[in-house]
């Protein structure tokens, strides 16, 4: 496959590009959805094509084709340069491009069990079984289960001499139960609201043991119908790990994207409240807040060998002891900011322009545990599993809803509460973090649906997190 990428790059250079790269991507996906013991859909998707990037002056030109032939690759290289030249009608400053090591390398996701060779009957039977278990709980009207697997081969070639082949394998899925009342619906899901996704094979599915948790979440969904509504108040908030992971994703992960900080995403995704002159001094949170962007974590969803610009995967400090010290960057954005490139540029398939994306943005573990945190809380609430998320275009003002909560009184869990929400301002909220769990409660949560860019791209990102406590948070906001 390298030959097609080479042909595209050579043609783009001949057409005037000062730099060019190309990715041949061949991918397949299998997705199974079961609802109430019936298969809703069994979809298999295959995609193959080549995408070429050409840099001329201040702008990238990008062209992609699903025709995997030498002739089509050459045309794609020509078209990428033509598109870059058209950008000169509205030029900016010449785009800089930081050097990285030029490598010829390969990388493969470590996995035990190829998910595409596990019999379909085994996967379908698993989902039918767990939906049956959930349906047996009185009050549960809808029980669903999903499994999705990805297998991606990428061949990357740059005009600077990169030749990189990667084979990435990702697996994930989840289950959920919905109970319906007269004028409300209540949902509980496992392992988290969109399922849990990791790099790896079918062993990921076996590890999370859906069957052992189906009955519990179904009982909780049904119980929520008669639970008390959370009252609006300011109180101590304990977040379960997957909700803390999403909090990191939305209020830290997107805020530290250098393309947002530079204004490149201003119209759609937005910008960031973070300003580069404050890098190294801005107080983002409490001393317990230590965030890294680590694309090398074994098993985490945002793990790979090289990004889509040929930069090797690395771990970068983002927040150290509460102070903002790092960003997510690529070769062009890093050059503009005068920073080393972070190897965080990825494209969604062969037909999307690679852009700055989160890798594994996680908080390093603390020395406590959920049990200790609850025991140490006189009055507060414990919220689990995301239900809704909303944040402003500068990544400051957020409001999250979770599926379930419990009152915490005198160190013990009390009443179950429904329709929990909490709201706050990012750095104020993070400054209130005063307890953080660790040990085996520190999990590499995976987010398989991070949207960004135009045309829209979906990225798979990881967020390591453990339960944590935040002081004096506004909860229970509803219309």
């Amino acid at each position, binding site marked *: 496959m390298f030959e097609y990428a080479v042909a595209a790059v050579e043609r783009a250079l001949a057409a005037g590009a000062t730099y060019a790269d190309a990715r041949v991507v061949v991918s397949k996906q299998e997705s199974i*959805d079961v609802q109430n013991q*019936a*298969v*809703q*859909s*069994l*979809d*298999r*998707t*295959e*995609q*193959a*094509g080549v995408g070429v990037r050409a840099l001329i002056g*201040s*702008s*990238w*030109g*990008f*062209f*992609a*084709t*699903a*025709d*995997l032939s030498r002739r089509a690759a050459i045309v794609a290289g020509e078209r990428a340069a033509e*598109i870059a030249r*058209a950008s000169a*009608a*509205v030029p900016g400053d010449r785009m800089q491009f930081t050097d990285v090591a030029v490598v010829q390398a390969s990388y493969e996701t470590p996995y035990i069990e190829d998910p595409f060779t596990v019999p*379909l009957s085994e996967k*379908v039977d698993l989902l*039918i079984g767990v939906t049956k278990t959930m349906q047996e709980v009185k009050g549960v*009207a*809808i029980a669903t289960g999903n499994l999705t697997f990805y297998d991606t081969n990428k061949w990357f070639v740059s005009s600077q001499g990169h030749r990189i082949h990667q084979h990435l394998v990702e697996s994930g899925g989840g289950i959920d139960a*919905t109970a*319906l009342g007269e004028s*409300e*619906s209540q949902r509980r899901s496992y392992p988290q609201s969109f399922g849990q996704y990791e790099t790896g094979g079918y062993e990921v599915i076996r590890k999370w043991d859906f069957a052992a948790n189906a009955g519990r979440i179904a009982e909780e969904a049904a119980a929520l119908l008669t639970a008390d509504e959370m009252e609006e108040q300011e109180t101590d908030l304990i977040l379960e790990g997957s909700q803390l992971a999403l909090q990191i994703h939305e209020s830290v992960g997107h805020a530290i994207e250098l393309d947002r900080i*530079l*204004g*490149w*995403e*201003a*119209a759609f995704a937005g910008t960031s409240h973070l300003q580069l002159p404050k890098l190294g001094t801005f107080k983002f949170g409490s001393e317990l807040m230590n965030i890294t962007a680590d694309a090398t974590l074994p098993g985490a969803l945002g793990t790979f060998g090289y990004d889509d610009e040929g930069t090797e995967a690395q771990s970068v400090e983002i927040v150290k002891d509460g102070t903002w010290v790092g960003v997510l960057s690529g070769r062009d954005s890093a050059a503009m900011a005068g920073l080393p490139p972070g190897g965080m540029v990825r494209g969604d398939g062969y*037909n999307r*322009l690679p852009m700055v994306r989160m890798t594994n943005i996680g908080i390093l573990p603390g020395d406590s545990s959920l049990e200790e945190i609850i025991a140490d809380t006189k009055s507060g609430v414990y919220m689990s599993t995301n239900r*809704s*998320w*909303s*944040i*402003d*275009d*500068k990544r*400051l*003002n957020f*409001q999250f*809803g979770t599926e379930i909560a419990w009152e915490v009184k005198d160190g013990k869990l009390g009443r179950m509460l429904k329709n929990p929400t909490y*709201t706050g*301002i990012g750095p104020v909220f993070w400054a209130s973090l005063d307890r953080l769990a660790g040990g085996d409660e520190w999990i590499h949560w995976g987010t398989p649906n991070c949207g960004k860019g135009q*045309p829209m791209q979906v990225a798979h990102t990881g967020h390591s997190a453990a339960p944590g406590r935040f002081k004096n948070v506004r909860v229970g906001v509803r*219309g």
Partner: protein
Amino acid sequence: MSREIHLTEQILDLVGERAEAEVLASTGNLALTRFANSFIHQNVAEEGEAVSLRVAVDGRIASSKTTATAPDSLAAFVEAALETAAMQPVDEDWAGVAAPAALPAIEHADDATYDASPDTRANLVKEFIETGTGMLAAGYCQTEGQSVAFANSAGQAASGRNTSAIIDGIHQTGTSAGSGHAASVAIGDLDGAAVGVIAAQRAADSVAPFDAKPGEYEVILAPEAVGTLAVFLGFYGFNGKMLSEGQSFVVLGSQQFDDRFQMWDDVTDPRAMGIPFDTEGTPKGRLELVADGVTRGVAHNRKTAKKTGVASTGNNIPGSEGWGPVPTNVFVGGGDRSVDELIADVERGIYVSTFNYCRILDPKTMVVTGLTRNGTFMIENGRITDAVTNMRFTQSFVDALGEGKILGLGGDARFADSEFAAGIMYVPTMHLASWNFTGGAEG
């Protein structure tokens, strides 16, 4: 014979008598010129073709999609789909493939848009940027052209072409931003300067915003904000699957909205975009969703229609199996008032240019939270007096449109989009009696 029709026939031949089958083949292009900091920084295009196949082997269903369309690849693709289906349990709700039926004679396509060059898009971008003197512009200009063919084993065959062109952007000062948006089937209809002027005016008018107190306000919602309401109503409410599962707010035949509220889905409207059949080959027509405030219908595909005992409305989209069928050519009825006249009726309220990052808290009550963006203004005694900082709201969209809540409708209906899907909502400015703002965006 077009390439797409050839592909559908090729695949049906490969399936033969072994299964019920439906095939969707498409060829086309998508190009998007993106700008930020007042220059074009990303500029992309793609061409390709793709084939989707759904087979039913004795009621056992499997779906597959591929971009590999060489003859040998297609043969392997078909065999894999048949093998996969044969391993499945029987789907008791399978409604079979669509019977042959005539299509509406309408095509929403424009050759100049299908063949639009990067230079054409760059010129529109330049027009937009030049309207914001001293401001930073960001946004995009997109063109898309698609040719689609459908065929199934029952003899239904359909084909069509569609195009779309969009320019969308913001102008920014150091303290504010304003947005503009336009979409059409034909790129020749777009005026980059006209869209840019609106964005620049909103940005200039909001350079010194203040923090308004949270609470209930009358609102004037610009078309982008009304588009957000329509998207949520359509996707979570007027959805045949969600209704049959008890997750929708919809009560058919009930007065759930103000009697001024009209909403319908109609690809046959000359102003619409898209093709006149869905991914199951069912012809699309006009579907009444709300008439004079009474909820009249929901979107169906073949499966939800069978379950409900009605006919499919032709609203199947990719992913419908899990999410359900939804309307994608939505119109909200307008009035005859100008925006200035609507504002003149407000004693104290908020003008909202766009909503941002809206997410549902409960589909059954349609409570949504989100923020305002790109131009939010205080209205006092019938005129805009000040800009206000972005605000967060938590509001039931059904309650907001309830009986007695629509106080005025603009005569300015157009395609509008703020964050979800351009080209599917054609809506006017709206004056509503009450909207619940819960706080300022920056605390």
